[in-house]
């Protein structure tokens, strides 16, 4: 009898110990790279060549100013990235909400076919249409311009799907009808009633679209040609392409840190919504 009550107790302890062990190991594997990155970004080229130490050096400011004056327009790249990602996030969420509203609130001919089409194209990777996309941009004289990186985000099936599901749970048809009774126009209803109601879901999707665009390398590397127009991922790839071992390694680490840490800071501030958003949405990419 005594053994019987003792045994499950022990096994819970054992499992809990194992769980914490694995969790701490995973957390270590997820964080250690960024720790090393931070340490190395604070050390000078000479210190770095002498091997790794787990303590920060004193070259943080020097590496930072070195990066500002390096051959690569890193700060400009960050501004470009902010511009492209910010506009993409705004356009993507506004128009995806609009698309979701069209499917949610109106019963028109072809509605179901349209919904199925949007879901069907959800999984098509951008890479498989890249060839035609580049040819199109060339013909439209939109190569080396941000238009091709920003405007396509208006048609984002995954964002649409998430917002549509959220809309199903918060927006009742009777609310829309009440607005009509009060004489509100359809665009007015959409902008003044639907958008505010959808704010939590829009915020989550805006973050995901921003981060997705911020991290995107494939399309920008094909479209952007002028050095001062390039976004951060393209500049990072250039850094890899150069004979970078001749570079000041402190500055190389600083440049990588400069492109990674803003996202980490934003994430830590908003992690509650982001993790919750993944949980709700299921699909991200």
């Amino acid at each position, binding site marked *: 009898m005594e053994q019987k009550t003792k045994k499950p107790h022990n096994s*819970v302890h054992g499992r809990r110990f194992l769980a914490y062990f694995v*969790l701490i190991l995973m957390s270590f594997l997820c964080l250690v790279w960024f720790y090393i990155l931070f340490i190395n970004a604070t050390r000078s080229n000479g210190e770095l060549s002498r091997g790794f130490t787990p303590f920060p050096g004193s070259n943080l400011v020097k590496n930072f100013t070195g990066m500002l004056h390096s051959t690569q327009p890193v700060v400009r790249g960050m501004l470009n990235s902010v511009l492209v990602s910010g506009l993409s996030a705004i356009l993507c969420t506004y128009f995806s909400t609009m698309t979701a509203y069209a499917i949610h609130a109106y019963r028109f001919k072809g509605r179901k076919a349209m919904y199925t089409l949007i879901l069907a194209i959800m999984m098509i990777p951008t*890479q498989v249409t890249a*060839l035609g996309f580049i040819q199109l941009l060339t013909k439209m004289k939109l190569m080396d311009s941000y238009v091709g990186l920003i405007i396509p985000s208006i048609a984002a099936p995954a964002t649409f799907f998430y917002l549509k599901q959220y809309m199903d749970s918060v927006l009742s048809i009777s609310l829309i009808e009440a607005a009509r009774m009060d004489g509100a126009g*359809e665009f007015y209803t959409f902008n003044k009633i639907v958008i505010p109601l959808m704010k939590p879901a829009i915020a989550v999707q805006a973050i995901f679209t921003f981060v997705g665009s911020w991290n995107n390398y494939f399309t920008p590397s094909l479209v952007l040609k002028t050095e001062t127009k390039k976004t951060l991922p393209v500049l990072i790839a250039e*850094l890899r392409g150069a004979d970078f071992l001749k570079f000041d390694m402190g500055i190389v680490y600083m440049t990588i840190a400069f492109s990674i840490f803003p996202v980490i800071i934003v994430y830590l501030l908003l992690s509650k919504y982001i993790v919750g958003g993944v949980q709700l949405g299921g699909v991200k990419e």
Partner: protein
Amino acid sequence: MAANTKSTNGGSKKVMRYNRWGYIFLLPFFIVFVIFQLIPLATTIYNSFFENYRSGLKQIGPNFIGFANYAKILSSPDLWKYVGNTLIMWLIGFIPQILVSLLLAAWFTDPSLNLRGKRFFKTVIYLPNLIMASAFAMLFFTLFADSGPVNSMLVQMGLISKPFKFFSSTVATRSLVGFMNFIMWTGNTTILLMAGMMGIDPTLFEAAEVDGASANQIFRRITLPLLRPILVYVLITSLIGGLQMFDVPQILTNGSGDPARNTMTMVMWLNKHLYSKNYGMGGALSVLMFLLTGVLSIAVFHITGNDEKTDR
């Protein structure tokens, strides 16, 4: 707002008038979709039937050659090599990813374990998913370089006598790519599986516990079978993502896919065709990838039953 001045029981005619607004609200999506996705898809397919490339300074084509590009690409040993590379590197990342995610999700949702700091761990483990893959790959390249910190640590600890050339070893480079994918996607999969596990009727677990089932038995006999649809969903979406693998191996190997092109993925090869303006072969490769992801997507569609749920 003429409709509003009419009597409210104007019936279906009024509703019909409103419903026309559906087209207007759909218009932005539809226009952008047609211009930036449908037309490019059509021209990509069109291109795949033409001989069209540059040989030095000379432009060859475009000449219509039917399915010759497909015949050429499907009989090319390169294609199968790169498909193999892509799948191997995907598997190196996916196998530990699904195992660890299953464990973590089971632990997170087990009330008897009552783990502390769940939110902290979820936040940390999800973090790498948001990191710029190209910068992450660049970071790994510097860390694992011949004179990088990992080698200097291993030498200092006396584990090796001289730096190990990670990027000259096929196994090491492929493993690094797989490992990075593992780190980047485990958090995401854990959260998906957790949502699935929390959807399982808790009375099933209680009944099993009353019957004296061990945690291990409950996991294998109840959790896993009920989780199967989500597991298949995770498997296929991860495979679709894996087929698109590009940023990490591209930056890690500077686009060369070295050593010996053993880390060259399908999209890296496509990228090469796009840069060299070999539109015929690039088109054929794109169409093959489109068909492959199409088949996999239809499978996802069936599992999630999206087509049924659409109309309420």
